[in-house]
């Protein structure tokens, strides 16, 4: 293809940022004639290159984008399509410092609504709220962006802290993204005034792990808080690498037998048997095979994978290596959401150390198995956690999911047979190898084996990640988190995140197993247990969920792209007591939207975008809608 690029040259900083990632340009005059397979193989560097620009100069300028396109032989329209897809990339000039202030469902329980209001009065409206961010270079006379600005953000995955923010700062050295957590108003104002973001407090994200003596029932959390996340030796001293040794001794077939005996199912939400997934890839005659760790957990209220990545990164590396050995893959990827800079840094460090120590590379622990791992960073898109969208994102495209079949085990990343699991599932595999498949199957209940991580947040005394063997009830989980805060009354629990369902206090006895919540008409989803007490504005919470799905829809299919907008509008009209026609007509509309989104959307986002809203309506959480239809 002939690239037609803007004639404005990229600035030195922009070139340096891109060259820092891609290496120096091959020819000084820029007349590079290379196409075909070599050019296409570079496409996967597109998102990292755009991130390099964003990190260095604070936005993706037309000239910077053109330089990336020239280096990677990507048409600029396509590159712009990618750059304008991700919330952590800006295609218009932006302040050098942008604070993304979480105003999602959990932080709202912690007063995020009031915090954002205070910011609006004291600093001004959030970027993109008053005037749009604009596009391309600033017009002559356009206002120069201020030094710092803020923008409301969907869930940042630091829900146990009650208030979260992410600082994005254009910089030539040091990390461009840093978490603020907790992020009370003063901390945000401090950064907006030019101050250094304070490092996140060493919060105890897993209260069970802080207790002494340590609970022997902790399996996935067994090293959390105990092991030095930067030390491979410490990891080994705490039982690390034993599962990998065992996997190599057992061989792929042996591990699959153990996994089958364990009856482990995926923890990402779909509850698909892990052994079946891995076997489909391992036995696929098409080569090469790939494995992917999905650390893009963006479900509002979910932070378990972040805790694991931050506290036990070597376990993630080891688990992915086991996955590679079993699935016959020599290359793996771990896609980690952009909002987790600390977890990403620790995982990258772990990968580097593992490579140095022969834990990754051509001969794992001296065996004939070879495996290497690449860490990829997301750029602010919930939808990228959907497996086919995740592949597209790694490949350098817009994170748009596609229809299945074909399934990833047949055509996954780069079109190769691919196994993909989320981090919690991967750590379960290590546990299966540690104690054996039958022993794992003995934990939990008949259909739900092993332990499960629950992200307990909201109106509880001690929010955090909790691990329980399957069979624990909702009431027991809330009690472990200290119960409802300061003696308030429980109003509802959101189970499974924004894609999950609200349940009432009558569900406290429900066993949080796959089969138990199914009979209660809910799902476990990503393990979110968000408690809402009687002080929480439930209408506001439901509307925030509707806003979330609208904002995070990729825009590909009509039911989701337009349906999520119409759903939000109908809820706004109900809340304002200005129904179109009658309340019954609005509820009718909402129900039809829910059905068509569930039935006709391409992926799980659209298919679940109305689940929480519908459950809230059933529970009567929306008083304006209590006039029941028909």
């Amino acid at each position, binding site marked *: 293809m002939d690239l037609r690029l803007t004639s404005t040259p990229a600035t030195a900083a922009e070139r340096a940022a891109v060259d820092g990632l891609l290496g120096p340009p091959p020819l000084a005059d820029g007349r590079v004639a290379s196409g075909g397979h070599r050019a296409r193989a570079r496409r996967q560097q597109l998102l990292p290159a755009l991130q390099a620009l964003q990190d260095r100069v604070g936005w993706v300028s037309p000239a910077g984008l053109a330089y990336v396109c020239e280096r990677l032989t990507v048409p600029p329209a396509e590159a712009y399509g990618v750059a304008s897809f991700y919330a952590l990339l800006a295609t218009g000039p932006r302040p050098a410092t942008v604070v993304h202030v979480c105003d999602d469902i959990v932080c709202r329980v912690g007063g995020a609504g009031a915090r954002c209001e205070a910011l609006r009065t004291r600093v001004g409206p959030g970027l993109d709220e008053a005037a749009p961010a604009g*596009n391309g270079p600033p017009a002559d006379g356009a206002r120069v962006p201020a030094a710092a600005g803020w923008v409301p953000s969907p869930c940042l995955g630091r829900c146990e802290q009650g208030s979260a923010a992410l600082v994005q700062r254009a910089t030539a050295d040091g990390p461009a993204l840093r978490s603020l957590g907790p992020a009370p108003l003063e901390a945000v104002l401090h950064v907006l005034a030019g101050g250094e973001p304070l490092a996140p407090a060493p919060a105890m994200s897993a209260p069970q792990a802080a207790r002494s003596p340590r609970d022997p029932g902790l399996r996935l959390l067994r090293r959390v808080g105990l092991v030095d996340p930067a030390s491979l030796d410490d990891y080994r001293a705490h039982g690390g690498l034993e599962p990998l040794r065992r996997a190599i001794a057992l061989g792929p077939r042996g591990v699959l037998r153990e996994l089958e005996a364990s009856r482990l199912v995926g923890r990402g939400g779909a509850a698909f048997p892990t052994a079946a997934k891995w076997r489909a890839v391992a036995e696929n005659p098409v080569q090469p095979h790939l494995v992917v760790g999905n650390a893009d957990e963006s479900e509002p209220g979910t932070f378990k994978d972040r805790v694991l990545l931050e506290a036990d990164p070597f376990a993630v590396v080891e688990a992915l290596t086991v996955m590679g050995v079993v699935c016959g893959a020599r290359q793996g990827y771990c896609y980690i959401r952009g909002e987790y800079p600390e977890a990403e840094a620790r995982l990258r460090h772990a990968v580097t150390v593992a490579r140095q120590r022969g834990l990754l590379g051509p001969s794992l622990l001296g065996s004939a198995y070879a495996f290497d791992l690449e860490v990829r960073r997301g750029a602010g898109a919930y939808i990228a956690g959907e497996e086919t969208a995740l592949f597209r994102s790694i490949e350098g495209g817009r994170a748009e999911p596609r229809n299945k079949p074909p399934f990833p085990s047949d055509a996954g990343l780069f079109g190769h047979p691919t196994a993909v699991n989320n981090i919690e599932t991967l750590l379960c595999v290590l546990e299966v190898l540690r104690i054996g498949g039958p022993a794992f199957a003995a934990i939990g209940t008949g259909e739900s084996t092993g332990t499960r991580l629950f992200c307990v947040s909201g109106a509880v005394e001690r929010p955090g990640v909790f691990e329980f063997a399957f069979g624990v009830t909702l009431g027991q989980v809330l009690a472990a988190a200290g119960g409802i805060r300061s003696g308030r009354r429980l109003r509802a629990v959101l189970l499974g995140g924004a894609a999950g369902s609200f349940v009432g206090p009558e569900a406290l006895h429900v066993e949080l197993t796959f089969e138990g919540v199914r009979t209660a008409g809910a799902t476990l989803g990503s393990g979110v247990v968000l408690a809402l007490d009687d002080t929480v504005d439930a209408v506001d919470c439901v509307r925030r969920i509707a806003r979330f799905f609208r904002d995070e829809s990729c825009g590909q299919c009509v039911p989701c792209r337009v349906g999520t907008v119409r759903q939000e509008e109908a809820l706004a009209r109900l809340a304002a007591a200005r129904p179109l026609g009658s309340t019954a007509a609005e509820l009718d509309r909402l129900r039809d939207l829910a059905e068509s989104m569930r*039935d006709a959307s*391409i992926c799980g986002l659209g298919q679940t975008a109305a689940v929480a809203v519908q459950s809230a309506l059933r529970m009567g959480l929306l008083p304006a809608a209590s006039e029941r239809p028909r």
Partner: protein
Amino acid sequence: MTARPLPIPPRLVTCSVDGAPVAVPQGSTLLDACRQAGIDTPTLCYLETLAPVNACRVCVVEVEGSRTLVPACSRPVEPGMAVRTDTERVRLSRRLVLELLASSVTLDRAAPELRRWIERYGADPGRFGPPLPPTHPRDAAAPGHHGAVLVDGAEACHQPVKDDNPNYVRDYARCILCYKCVEACGTEAQNTFAIAVAGRGFAARISTEYDVPLPDSACVYCGNCIEVCPTGALAFRGEHRMRGEGTWAEERQVVTTTICPYCGVGCNLELHVQDNAVVRVTSPLGHEVTRGNLCVKGRFGFQFVQNRPGEG
């Protein structure tokens, strides 16, 4: 004529559509099966000459054993599949897709079948309230954020018409985001990649890089995007002007098939003539060489015929 070896006849796969058995060649889609069974299946983003993107979801059908509905246009037929095309679920989803599109996009220049489908599925275009312009300019929308939620009606995709080149006009208030133009501009036909989908969610739109005018983009004015556009969002400049003036009258137009006079390829042209002037040029989709595609000369280089300087 050149002798060509006959291909091996493909194996037939049998499925059932609305209870009747249908045998189609292996690799066929459910849409092929439906059409073979004589069932009119609505499609918007589908075109025979392009790879299906199954984005519009108006062709969804119910397949026994499938949790959700499946897009007929892209799902290959598997032996023994039981397909239902007229169940309550199918009708509801198809109706909602049509209502949602009608609530957000101007559809008055869309293909006439669309009106037929709207009638058949009982879609109420005004069900979600009167269309209102967005609160932010769509071309500058930031991903993951949107303006105030409108309660007086339905937020729609109103956008100023882009009239930035001598050949054709882009009126994205009529765009249903079927991806066909992007495909035609890209690997499916032209390999120019002047346009792509930008933004995300409801703010997703077809755009050049940074919304630069077409003359600054990679566009080569082949007009193959106009050929595939199902809603009239892309139109010859003259057509756009005539429609605005109310002088566009398809019933008065005569289509003349001829051959492009410019080069030796000899692409087939269909000249749409109204009042003795060429107003639009298309090319037959079914032609095995050009598959509906032309270049700038065949598509727009017809002024010399009528020897009138100015607009096409």
